[in-house]
């Protein structure tokens, strides 16, 4: 089966004609998908869902809105304010050009995007402030859903038919809502995560009374054999939780370890999930921050084409999800701006419908300002091609930053006690300290030595993240000392200073040189 291309998407839009989506227009992915050749339908997940999730009924006022389709109907039912009292007449944004790798002069090619209050009525626009700034659907605007649907086809092309998408207020909310949908303490539920896991995900599950079970990792992420063994031999009484039915994983540039799952690793994990009927939450904010290995090669300096770029991306769980057992959680935070508080989830129609029901009472969807500006940027200004160009630019930028950090490691860290992997994606380096080499190591716990290093760094003016902050099961004894260092935000000079300081702190504690 041929993968969809940008040209296919352009042709579909052309054929469909201008999109008409007024205030609070309902939309789903099926309205915008390419015709797909026979794909199977997703499995159903009724037994995986919580009572709370299953009890959600559609909002009565939203149901009544279907009557508005009748010609001549006057509504005195809704509580939507009139746009004549919106104090915003237009909003514009100055957009820097995406520089090519030679670094063209950005100021010469800066451009502007503008959205007015009544662009739809007064022109041929598809989105305007009167729509974006009024109440909308919790799933997000039709305009953004179209772009996300197309993007999903382009990048993931899910292998089942009834996938759907909806916008979120960011991955934090995506994870939070997914957990409320799937895990119930009264059922003794637990979930599986990487043994070192995104701290905020752990902090979401804990107050809900959901037990977290960490899976041992190697350089490629969680080890499928370990996961299989754990699930096969699960003893609910001993574990104090019923057998897990949810896996939470960050497959690319994992936070905190920086590990990235290979295609083979994902397939193996997927198979274990099929065997034990596990639903997968694929949280992938760093997917497009794949870092390059060819940047400094003189022989291959050119930018790959869109199709090469896409082909070089490792397959996502969504792209191998024949069962519809994956909810993919995506975000604009790392690739556009975090302050948009906007992302999206992709899963089977059943799961997206339940997700939207919750979003109707939990958030009513993302900000209209965010939707308006991101739409203008990614759809009208950049288009899918321009968005891929942007992603390649980010890859180049983050690769350069990573390389500065790795060079600093090489130069300043005592290799006799420190080891690390070169991350192939994301924002994080994960450093292992052989704490047993500390003088009198036997007198101290790993936790003590970790704190000692952390405090010594702080004293010298460097903040690093402790590995123990990310432990899925903090009650288990800590055997290894890790630190997470990010190369995302600091200047090259600051990174060098900070890594040198980190090295000095280690040498002093470990009495080296």
């Amino acid at each position: 089966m041929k993968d969809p291309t940008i040209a296919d998407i352009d042709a579909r839009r052309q054929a469909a004609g201008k999109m008409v989506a007024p205030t609070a227009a309902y939309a789903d992915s099926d309205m915008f998908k390419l015709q797909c050749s026979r794909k199977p339908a997703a499995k159903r997940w009724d037994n995986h869902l919580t009572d709370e999730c299953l009890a959600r009924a559609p909002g009565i006022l939203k149901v009544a809105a279907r009557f508005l389709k009748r010609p001549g109907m006057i509504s005195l039912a809704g509580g939507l304010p009139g746009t004549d009292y919106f104090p915003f007449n237009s909003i514009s944004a100055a957009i820097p050009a995406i520089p090519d790798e030679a670094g063209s002069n950005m100021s010469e090619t800066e451009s502007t995007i503008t959205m007015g209050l009544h662009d739809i009525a007064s022109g041929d626009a598809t989105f305007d402030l009167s729509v974006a700034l009024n109440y909308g659907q919790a799933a997000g605007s039709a305009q953004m859903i179209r772009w996300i649907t197309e993007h999903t086809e382009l990048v993931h092309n899910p292998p089942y038919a009834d996938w759907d998408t909806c916008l979120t207020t960011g991955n934090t909310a995506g994870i939070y809502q997914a957990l409320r949908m799937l895990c119930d303490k009264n059922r003794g539920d637990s979930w599986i995560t990487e043994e070192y896991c995104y701290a905020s995900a752990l902090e979401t599950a804990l107050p809900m009374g959901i037990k977290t079970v960490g899976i041992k990792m190697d350089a490629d992420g969680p080890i499928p054999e370990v996961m299989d063994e754990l699930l096969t031999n699960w003893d609910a009484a001993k574990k104090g939780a019923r057998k897990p039915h949810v896996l939470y994983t960050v497959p690319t540039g994992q936070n905190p370890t920086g590990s990235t799952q290979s295609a083979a690793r994902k397939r193996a994990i997927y198979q274990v999930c099929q065997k034990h009927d596990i639903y997968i939450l694929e949280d992938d904010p760093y997917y497009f921050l794949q870092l390059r290995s060819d940047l400094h090669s003189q022989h291959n300096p050119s930018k790959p084409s869109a199709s090469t770029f896409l082909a070089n991306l490792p397959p996502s769980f969504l792209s191998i999800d024949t069962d519809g057992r994956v909810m993919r959680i995506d975000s604009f935070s790392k690739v556009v701006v975090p302050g948009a508080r906007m992302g999206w989830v992709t899963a089977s129609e059943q799961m997206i419908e339940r997700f939207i029901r919750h979003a109707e009472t939990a958030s009513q969807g993302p900000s209209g300002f965010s939707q308006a500006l991101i739409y203008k940027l990614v759809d009208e200004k950049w288009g899918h091609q321009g968005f891929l160009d942007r992603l390649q630019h980010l890859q180049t930028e983050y690769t350069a930053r990573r390389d500065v950090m790795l060079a600093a490691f090489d130069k300043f860290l005592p290799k006799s006690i420190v080891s690390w992997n070169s991350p192939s994606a994301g924002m994080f380096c994960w450093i292992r300290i052989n704490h047993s080499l500390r003088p009198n190591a036997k007198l101290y716990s790993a936790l003590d030595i970790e704190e000692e290093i952390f405090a010594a760094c702080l004293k010298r003016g460097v903040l690093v993240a402790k590995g123990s902050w990310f432990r899925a099961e903090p009650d288990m004894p800590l055997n290894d000392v890790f630190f997470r260092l990010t190369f995302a935000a600091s200047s090259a000079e600051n990174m060098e200073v900070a890594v040198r300081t980190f090295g000095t702190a280690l040498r002093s504690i470990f009495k080296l040189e």
Partner: protein
Amino acid sequence: MASRQGVVSISSRTVRPLHSRSSHLYSAEAAATAQPATHQVDYAPSLLGEIAARRAKAGKLVAGIAAASDSDMFKGPQTGKPKAKRWDNHLTAESRSREPCSLKQAAKHLKQPGLISLGGGLPSSELFPLDELDMKVAMPPDFSEKATTTHGQRVTIGKYDARDRDGTYDLSIALNYGQATGSAQMLRFLTEHTEIVCKPPYADWRICQTIGSTGALEQALRMFLDKDRGDSVLTEDFSFSTALETIAPLGVKAYGIPIDEQGLIPEAMDELLTNWDETARGSRKPHLLYTVPSGQNPTGATQGLERRQAIYRVAQKHDIFILEDEPYYFLQMQPYTGRGQPDAPAPSNVEEFVSSLIPTYVSMDVDGRVMRMDSLSKVLVPGSRLGWIVASEQIVERYQRHAEVASQGPSGFSQVIVHKLLDETWGHEGYLRWLMNLRLEYTKKRDALLAACEDNLPRDLVSWTPPAAGMFLWFTIDHTKHPKADSSSLLEIEQEIFDSCIKSGVLVARGSWFLTEKDSALPGLYFRATFAAASAENMNAAIARFGQAVKDSFGRK
């Protein structure tokens, strides 16, 4: 873009004249009456001046990326006020068990001068694909859309205004990760706004921004209600349908309290609680009240000051925590004088406007037992998905912990755009003028709907109370006069009228949609109409159709 830099200075210059124009706020006469006596006159005329002076004294607000802030940084002196009570027993186990995020705790070390952080996962603002936002916004005195189109104010938000242009807030800060409380810049404005409008009578009140009152309500309910404890919540016996739809999946019951034209009846609430029978009810005695005091959705009822005081006393007596949901607070309208009668005189300045508002629950909350939920949806734009709560430090801290994992706070685009408008372009006084204008505009819309009702509805069958606030008019239909009163249920008659409305081309909301206790009998025949969005002509046509549908059902001509 360089040419736009001039625009910034123009816009900031217009801010100051807006304040200084109203000299009465600074006059000696006004200052003499400034001493707060009761909450009715809590609004001190010199307050805007005090706030301006406080800001000047505090110096420029420096709050960079993800700067932590709280209301205490921006409040005036709280001397002599008591501290809020604690609500440990009211909170759920889930809420009590929330721990501060370890990464955010580590951020406290960032205060150390010269510290380099390799700790956080924040992207670099260099890579943000937006250099500047520029917008055209409404300005006083003529806020109309027409005036804004022709001579709205252009305002600009740069990427590095805080660093390069002496600004306090910019895109590099707003569009990065932030605190779940929202930005310090917006928190300052909202804290001051709360002092102007609510002036809480206890010392340790705080504010947290929200992603709108929808999200705030769900979080609040999860903070207080636990089905495993047999919890339940009290509300009006007709209540906001989305609130009911938020409550139901949590596995807790909502109990309706009888209402009259001023909303919740305190005596009924007291009686319900005094005689609470846990076994018969299947829930333990409620410890939470959810109420919409102004322009209640759906009944349009507004609780007067004495009503609010009486309800507060009942809440004290039974140790009830109050969720005060006030999206329509600033849609309090001019008193309805009747058709052809001269209009009630409009407030002549912002001081009169603020004094004309019915005091909030927060303003009488000596115990700190109220969480007020405010929203910009009805007074600015719903799409901002931006609101805020006011409550005691304990409650706000728990709310914040929850928001850290549930949303991470409102959109940075929303915050920086709304801040530019409310704080930097309009200022407090300009915003109050905007609200004052909205009051008069909604008064006109209400009066148009009331006129349509007087012209088109059979007065012996349909009755209504002119709403004092909000967007909604609530029709009571005298079902006893219905020819099928004995043979058909109220629900069937309601359905018949509704179907007939749809057939003739008007959508009104059925009373039963809002019934709090879905399994109890409908106490009467009601419909809800809104005057927020339709034109006067459309309202007249729509009400004529509604009137005909009622008459048809009752077998009238």
